[in-house]
Each structure stands twice: as C-alpha cells, then as structure tokens.
C-alpha cells in the first residue's frame, strides 16, 4: 500500500516536472489576468489596482528574462513570500476600507490574490488555477454596475480566456503555432461566436432565482442625493448631480409636473438646526385606490438606502417585477415605503398611487410634530406667536406664511451661503432671505410648530423630465426636493410646498427653470441646445432599454416571454423543461446529423467474405501476411491444405472475378457466400 502510494507520489512529482509552464503560456496567462483586472480599475482604490496589475507584469517580465537566458534556472518565487504578500494585502485592504468583510474589500482582495497566485505560477496546474481565478474575476465588476460599458470592458478578457486555454493546451508544433497571439484570438472569437446560440438560449431560458440564496454584499458608501438628515443653512452651496435617481413608465400619460411629488424620507425631529428622520416602526394604512389613481413602473437605481419612491400617496405596496417579494417592504405610519435592506442594485417595481395631497393620521402623530427646542431660533418663535395672535384659523395662518414668502423679498437660489450657524432659521427668515427648498420647508415647519400647528418635513423628488424617445419619466438627483406637511384637525396631514410660493417655476418647470444663470447646476443641462438635448434623451432611452431588457431580464421577464409565446400560467418548471427540451432537441439533431455524416460505408461483401474465410483458415495456422493480398493468400492456403484446395481455388477464382472481372454479377456473390459458408477447415 505504502509502496503504491509512494509510486503514485513519484509519478505525480515527475509529472509536475514535465508540465512546466512555457514563457509563451505565462505571457498568455498574464494577458488574461490584466484583461480581467482592468474593468476593476475604476472600482478600486488606485494603489490596489496598481499593486495587482504590477504583480502580473513582474511575473511576465520574469518569463521574458527566462527566455532571454535559456540556460539559467527559471525564475522562482519562494512560497513563503506569497503568504507574506497575502497578509500584507489583507492588512492594507483593511486599512484602506476600514473593514474586511464586504463587497468592495472582498473584490479588492480577490483582485490582488489573482496577481499573487500568478507570481508563483510555474506548473500547468498553477496555470489552471490562475485561469479559474481570472474567470471569476470577470463577473465581479458587475457588482459595481451593469452598464453596457461594463460588459464591453470584459469582452477582451473573454477572448483572452480562449487564447490562454489554447496556449496551455498546445502539445504539438501545429497547436503551438495556433497559440500565437493573433491566430488564437481569431480562433477564440470563432469559438465564442459558435457558442453564441447556446449562450443566448441559456440566458433566456435558464431559471433565475426568485430569492437570493444569501445576502447581498453591502457597499460602504451611500450614493443618493437624499439623506435622513437635513441641515438647511449649514450648506453654503448645493452642487447638484444629474445622475439618474429613478425612471418611471406610466400606463397612461404622466401626471402634470406640479403633482409629481415622489415621497421619500419624512423628518419629524428638529433640534433647532437640523431635521432628522425618526424610524417609524408602526405600520401605516394605505390610502384606498380609486378613480383618479395612476399605475406606473419604477426602475430605481441602486442608492444604498432603504427608501422606495412612489408618487404621493402610495395606494399599494410595490410589486417587484424582479427578485424580491412584498414581505421585504413595509409602509410606515408616515406613509413611507421602506425596504428591509438597502437597495444595492437596480430594482424595478410596479406601483399604484393616488394623486392626493392629504391623508388621515391619528392625534398622536400630531403631538409628536409640535416639538421645538426651547430657546432656539427666538425671533422665528416670536414671529410664530405674533402670527397665531393675528390668525385664529390654521388655514389663514398657513396662507399668511406663504404670502410672506411670496410677497416679501425672498429669493430662490442654490447658493445661499452660510447664515447664522446657531439659529439658522432666524438667519434665513430675518437676515439672508436666500435659500432653496430645504430652507423654505424648514422655516415653514418651524413657524407652524411655533404657532401650535403640527408640521414636518418630507423629502423626496419633485418633477422629472419626460423622455419622448422612450415614453417615460427621468427623475434625477437634482430633482431632490423638500416640502412640508401640516396636520389639520379633522383632515389629517396636508401637503404644503412653500417653495412653490417663492419659486412656482421650480415646481412647474423643474430646477433649471427656477435658478438664475450663475447657479451651480451642470452646465450641459442648462445650455442644452435642442439637438444635444435630443441626443441626451436618446442615450438615456437606450440606457433604459438596456436596464429593462438585459440587466433586469429576470424571472418575471422570462415568464412574461413564455406567456407571450402562448404558455398558460408559466412557472420555473416550464422554463427548466423548455431549456432541457431545447438542449435535448439540439443534441438529438446533432447526433442524427453525425450518424448520417459518418454512416457506415456500404458493405464490401467480397472483402467481408474473404475476411471470414481467412478467420476460418486460422485453425490451420494460416494468417494473411501484412503485405499479402487475398488472391495470394488463398493460393498459399490451397497449397498448404490439399484437402481444401478445390474449394479454396474456387473461392479465389470468384473473388478475383468479383474484384477485377469485367462484369461482376450477383450470382457470383451468392456463389462466393455459399462456398465460404461451406468452408470447414
């Protein structure tokens, strides 16, 4: 047993010596790795990207040096160095991200690890491992984004994968020649094109998971334009981003801009300077869906926050048309849609809303929303008391505040400057009088609270751009907005947008329509010529198409497709069946074709009969020589076996006639069969 194990070990050891990677193979693996690493370059910290690629380049340089000095011992990195490298990498990744378990550091670690493994690669087995690491590295960039560019960036790696495989498999001069860079890239491209039908079939029919098997990796940074705190007056200048927050397809025409309030985080707590969202645990009740409701589908970009946006007010929980279920989302008592997990990827959901600006709520909510820290913003509180004295009616008081914003010298601007850091509301209302939505909403809510009317801030998006190219609405981060809600006895919460009083065009025409020429908004939005705007909208429509047809092609789209193909009540079993049936049909067709192509040649009866005769003559010790033809063999046999001589000479004669005669006949063949069958040596 031991000896056997030892011999096996020796064989393995000697094998390893045989299967060393050639410099060409190492170069191919290096090209593959760099191609697989490059798509990550924008997702990783610079030093990690540089370090990972540098390891690969160093190994390739060593291989080049080996080729230059054929006699010298090939480059070899001691294995302990790898452990050291790996530990240092883990340490640096930890230092760079602040944590180790998570999406970004894991990908960074894998990225460098592939380089480290490659650095010590010497044998064909190492090559296989590097190959597999590179393949896995190819899917990880999509954790960060799934744009068409992300896919295009991976295509070189897919090609290089084919090239590296061909180089590793080269065993003969012809296959080594085929592994030369250009030829093997062409060959790999050909193989990929030939595999495309199968790839497309799998993509369309392979059943998707309705629920993830394990948790999604969390990103470290929030990327939304909204947050759960708001500090008006503390921000000198608001730089607006024009990245897309969400897109919405309406079943009918989209509602007018002034009604497009996308409800997000609700902020009830005020400390004198900042508003913050309280986590409302209680579940709210949905407003009933009635005649003037709208139905639409939202494609929400990944924002790493838990809010799902719906037009005010949501009349149903979102129905995800991709992975995920209703149970993942709750409606809080302040009418927010909150997901249990942050939205780490593009999500798509069907949503129903009532275009209402008021909804009922219990008195408890009212008392919570009256709190003002005593002593803060004294001038504002004083003004509120004055207003209360002047207007006994809540509505009249609200109208008075809005009239103040509208009639006095308040300015809507995105660059208000910092005012009075201790009492920012006082600073805004009495000194600067310059601000954007947050300032107006905040001042409004503080004034009302001071006057004894429950009020709170609602943030979200307002408006959105209609894209005729794709018949949908684009809502961008610069559409982020803040407005107020007041509680009126007997009516519940009512929406009041103080910004509309000072800058109605912000509500009607969006941000660009509201701000002056020197405001910090992206220039290309403001200066958009008609042509450029067209191009932009078309490009966005293409992105939307990509998102829906490729990135969001999921279980739901699959079932939809099957339904359109006429399958009633499709489920994943039908998909699996369809996939299996298509593959089976393909392979059956293939084997029928191959069976036809390599069908047995028509039987050569004289040859078979001669073979049979020769087999029978084996008994007499007669074997046809390698270079001996049937005629010569039968002659020799006839001489060797006088008792069979007549029969054998007959067989020989007919055989020769069938083979070489002018007109072989079927009768001859029958006679030959008869004679050979009767041959009994």
């Amino acid at each position, binding site marked *: 047993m031991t000896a056997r194990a030892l011999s096996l070990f020796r064989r393995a050891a000697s094998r390893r010596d045989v299967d060393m990677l050639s410099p060409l193979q190492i170069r191919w693996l290096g090209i593959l790795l760099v191609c697989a690493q490059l798509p990550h370059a924008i997702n990783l910290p610079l030093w990690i990207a540089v370090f990972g690629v540098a390891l690969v380049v160093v190994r390739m340089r060593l291989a080049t040096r080996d080729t230059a000095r054929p006699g010298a011992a090939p480059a070899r990195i001691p294995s302990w160095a790898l452990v050291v490298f790996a530990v240092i990498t883990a340490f640096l990744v930890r230092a760079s991200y602040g944590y180790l378990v998570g999406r970004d550091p894991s990908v960074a670690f894998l990225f460098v690890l592939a380089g480290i493994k490659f650095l010590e690669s010497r044998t064909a087995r190492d090559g*296989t*491992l590097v*190959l*597999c690491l590179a*393949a*896995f590295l*190819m*899917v990880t960039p*999509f*954790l960060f984004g*799934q744009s068409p560019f992300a*896919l295009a960036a*991976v295509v070189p790696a*897919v090609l290089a*994968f*084919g090239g590296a*495989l*061909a180089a*590793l*498999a*080269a*065993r*003969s*001069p*012809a*296959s080594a020649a*085929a592994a030369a860079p250009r030829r093997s890239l062409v*060959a*790999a491209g050909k*193989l*990929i094109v030939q*595999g*495309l*039908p*199968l*790839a*497309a079939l*799998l*993509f369309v029919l*392979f059943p*998707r*998971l309705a629920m*993830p*098997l*394990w948790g*999604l*990796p969390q990103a470290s940074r929030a990327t939304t334009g909204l947050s759960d705190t708001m500090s008006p007056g503390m921000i000198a200048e608001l730089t607006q981003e024009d990245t897309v927050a969400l897109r919405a397809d309406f079943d009918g025409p989209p509602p007018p801009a002034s009604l497009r309030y996308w409800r997000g985080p609700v902020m009830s707590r005020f400390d004198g300077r900042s508003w913050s969202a309280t986590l409302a645990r209680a579940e709210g009740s949905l407003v009933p869906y009635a005649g003037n409701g709208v139905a639409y589908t939202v494609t929400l970009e990944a924002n790493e926050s838990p809010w799902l946006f719906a037009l005010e007010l949501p009349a149903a929980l979102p129905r995800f048309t991709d*992975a995920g279920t209703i149970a993942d989302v709750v409606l809080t008592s302040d009418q927010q849609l909150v997901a249990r997990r942050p939205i780490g*990827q593009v999500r798509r959901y069907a949503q129903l809303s009532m275009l209402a600006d008021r909804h009922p709520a219990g008195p408890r909510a009212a008392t919570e929303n009256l709190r003002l820290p005593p002593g803060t913003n004294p001038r504002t509180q004083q003004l509120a008391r004055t207003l209360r004295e002047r207007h006994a009616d809540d509505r009249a008081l609200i109208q008075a505040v809005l009239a103040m914003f509208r009639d006095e010298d308040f300015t809507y601007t995105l660059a208000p400057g910092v005012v009075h850091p201790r009492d920012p509301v006082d600073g805004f209302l009495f000194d600067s009088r310059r601000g954007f939505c947050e300032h107006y909403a905040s001042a409004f809510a503080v004034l009302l609270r001071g006057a004894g009317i429950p009020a709170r801030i609602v943030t979200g998006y307002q408006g959105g751009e209609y894209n005729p190219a794709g018949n949908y609405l684009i809502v961008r981060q610069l559409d982020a907005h803040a407005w107020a809600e007041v509680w009126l006895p007997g009516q519940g919460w009512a929406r009041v947008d103080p910004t509309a009083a000072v800058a109605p065009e912000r509500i009607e025409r969006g941000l660009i329509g509201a701000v002056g020429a020197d405001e910090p908004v992206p220039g290309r939005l403001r200066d958009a010529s008609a042509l450029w705007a067209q191009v932009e909208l078309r490009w966005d429509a293409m992105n939307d198409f990509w998102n829906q047809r*490729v*990135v*969001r*092609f*999921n279980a739901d789209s699959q079932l939809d497709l099957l339904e359109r193909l006429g399958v009633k009540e499709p489920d994943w079993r039908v998909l699996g069946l369809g996939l299996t049936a298509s593959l089976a049909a393909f392979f059956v067709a293939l084997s029928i074709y*191959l*069976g036809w192509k*390599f069908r047995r040649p028509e039987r050569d009866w004289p*040859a078979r009969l001669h*073979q049979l005769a020769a087999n029978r003559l084996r008994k007499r010790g007669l074997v046809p020589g*390698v270079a001996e033809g049937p005629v010569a063999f039968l002659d020799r046999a006839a001489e060797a076996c006088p008792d069979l001589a007549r029969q054998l000479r007959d067989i020989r004669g007919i055989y020769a006639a069938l083979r070489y005669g002018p007109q072989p006949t079927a009768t001859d063949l029958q006679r030959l069969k008869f004679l050979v069958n009767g041959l009994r040596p």
Partner: protein
Amino acid sequence: MPASRVAALPLAGVERARERFLRRRPSDGPAVTLAHARIYIVPSRRGLAVIGTLATMLVASLNYGLALGLVVTFLLTGLVSAALLHTFRNLAGLTLRPSGAGETFAGARIAFTLGLDPGGRDRVAIELAPRESSPKVVDVAFDAVPAITLEVDAPRRGRVALGRVTVSSTWPLGLWRGWSYVHFPLEGIAYPAPEPGAPALPPGTLAADEATLSGAGDAELAGLREYQRGDPMQRVAWKAVARGRGWYTKEFEGAGGGGPVLLAYASLPRTLDPETRLARLTAWVLACERAGRSYALSLPGLKLPAGLGREHRREALCALALFEPPGATRPADQRVRR
C-alpha cells in the same frame, strides 16, 4: 436449444458490448475510420476545473442578480461547448491503417507503422498511445498521408502484438479529451537476445548430404562463377567488380573444419535451459553472418538447410524466435498481450 446456451446469451451480449467499448481483441479490419460511434469524450482535469468555476460564477450571478455576470458565464459556457465539438471533429473522419510490423531482438523496442489518412481536414495534436508505451503526438496536414511509427517494448522473444492503441486529442482548448481505441492484428517478431560472450562457433562439421548448397564451404578458393541473385555479399569477387570485369561469385572447395556450420539445438549441453540455448544459437547465427560462413540450423522438429545472407538470417532468427521447446510451455502462447 440447450439451457446453458440460453443463459449464455445475455452474457454474450454484455461481452460483445464490452469488446465494442474497450477493443480488447484485435478486431479491427484493414482500415478504421473514427466515427461518432467509437469516439468517447469526457472533460479533462482542466475542463473539470473550468466547468466548476463556471458553476460558481453561475450561482454567484444568479444570487446577486447580475444579468451581465450571467451573460459572461454563458458566453464562456458557449466557448467550452464549442470546444467540445471541435475536439470531436478533430478525431472524427480520421482513418488509420495498419501498415507494418518490425522485427527486433528481445529487450529492444519493436517498431510498428500505422498509416494516417486525415480525410481532407487538418488534424492537430493527435496522440497515438500504445498500451504501456510512451505516446506520440502528431499533426497531420489535410493533404498528407503520413506513416507513424510506434515503438513498443519487446521484453521476450516471440510474437509481439501492437495491441490496442488509444487515439486521442484535447485540441483546441485542452478542456475535453476525446479518444478512440483501435486494435489491429499487427504482430512483430522479437528474436531471442543473443547470448553475450557466447563461446566460439562450433567447427564446420556438416556432412555433405546435409549441406544442400554444395561446395559452399569456405576453405579454399576453387574458382569464380557468374554472380546469381541471392549470392551472399561476402562471396562477391569485389576485385573483379572493381576492375569492371563484371560480377562473379567466389566458389570454395569445402573441406575439414571450414565447411558449413551446423547450429544444432540438440548438440548444446543439456544443462542449459532452453532460452539460453536459443540465445547462444542466436549469437552464433549473428557470428556466422559476420564471418560470412554459411550455416544450417537444426531445432527439434525444424531443419533449416545451410545458407547465408539476409533472407537466410531472417529465416533462422524467426525460427529461433518462434521455437517452442519440447516439454516447456509454448512461448507462442506467452506472446505479449496488450
């Protein structure tokens, strides 16, 4: 029908199937064209590793809902599947023909020749591996009809079969190994290994009646006669040839110890085992050929008249190779089965 035959029938079927799959017997005819029915394909070790990685990529992409991850995974799956068909195509339609078996001394390697017909398509990195012998990797251009020589160890004298040859290929990506067995009834002959340090040749004591080639002794030059085809090269009167007088063969007056040597199995000491005797006879045959002395071979049940030259040498060596010593197990049955 007897009961035993009924019971044997299914077994015979199994045996036939086994034979079809494994080709243990030399059942292949004069030419074999590899077709789908006899080409087998399984993933290579690297193929398994890549398929496992693809499975991991698939699960990860499904779990994280990465549609583009699935796109890449399925693209690579397509690549791997296409490679499967190419591996198959590299073998299918390739024709192999047995074209020759060599002869050698036991202990050396015996050469077999197979003719390859690529069937009008380039064949890349085809491996031909006889059992228990190192494989040979060849490329065959679409218009070439090469003869490939495979060498097989011949450890003992007797017939040596080429045995089953595995024709395989992992081209183009090394992810799949396609193979096919061919088993031609090719047999070469291994002569006994000559005894090292064999004693000197026995004296030429052959009686006249045993020497059919009369006067073929090598004692005294008796004269010249016209050269006839088949005369040993050693007897050619080269001086005459060099002078341009034509081809003559020297004739000798056979006498005394200079006559044809009789190499007789029976005259060797009985204390020697049969194989040693055959080895000594082999050494003597070679010595006679070197010395240019004609010799006759006598084995129990076989007598080879005196003679000299390539044909004679081959006849003698073959007789020694295939000789079955009386009473011993027949070496012809000990032929190396592969």
